[in-house]
């Protein structure tokens, strides 16, 4: 059996992802997160008299608190398994990746475990976010003043 045949066999035998179902679930869960966010923002603006921009900041704070807590309790992993991008693309995915990396490496100690691995997954978001924002600002400043 050569490599190509082996690849074909692997493809045939590996279980197929239910793509349509995944997509619909991601749409519904992601939309639900957006909807809940809007509800929270409106509650903050009406009940606490916050400005819209501040409410968005508080919303990010609340989502992160919720996601890290649920991950620590052990519920969020199952939800992410089911909802996939519905929970990965919102800020909850960022919080989930930090919290789960920290928990996974807890047994390696405070420094070489938690400290060294806490941004293992979320680090790429921070790195590429900052680098791309840096480059784009430089372009903006150089080209448009």
């Amino acid at each position, binding site marked *: 059996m050569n490599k190509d045949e082996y690849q074909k066999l692997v493809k045939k035998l590996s279980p197929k992802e239910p793509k349509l179902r995944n997509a619909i679930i991601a749409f519904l869960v992601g939309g639900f997160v957006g909807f809940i966010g809007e509800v929270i923002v409106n509650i903050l603006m009406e009940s606490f008299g916050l400005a819209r921009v501040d409410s968005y900041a508080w919303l990010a704070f609340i989502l992160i608190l919720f996601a890290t807590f649920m991950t620590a309790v052990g519920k969020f992993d199952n939800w992410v398994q089911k909802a996939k*991008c519905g929970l990965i693309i919102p800020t909850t995915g960022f919080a989930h990746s930090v919290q789960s990396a920290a928990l996974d490496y807890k047994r390696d100690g405070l420094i070489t475990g938690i400290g060294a691995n*806490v941004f293992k997954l979320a680090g790429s978001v921070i790195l590429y976010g900052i680098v791309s924002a840096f480059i784009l600002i430089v372009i903006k400043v150089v080209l448009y003043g």
Partner: protein
Amino acid sequence: MYLQAFIFAGIVCLICQVVLDNTTLTPGHITSSVTVIGALLSFLGIYDKIVACFGAGATVLIANFGHMLYSAGLAGYEESGILGFFSNMLCSSGIAIVSVVVFSFVFTLVFKAKD
């Protein structure tokens, strides 16, 4: 606004899920790309309009992280030059980074990993 938030956040997650299922990219690739796209849309002046139209539907996404980095950095540059550019960039997205670090550290000390 509730419906707009639902539809926008849902469609972005749907697109990402389709990309995830049909390519060999990992969730890490997707979230990083979405962050960069957020910064790019902010650069093109589109992201502010998206937030105005879809409200929290746009700010709950990780793309908002890129948008905040870009707009805070640019505001810093306009205020106090190159030093402001560097010192301000993490200004508004700092809430996400600091809160995630603090919460996950505290929760990690308190809870155990489940296998």
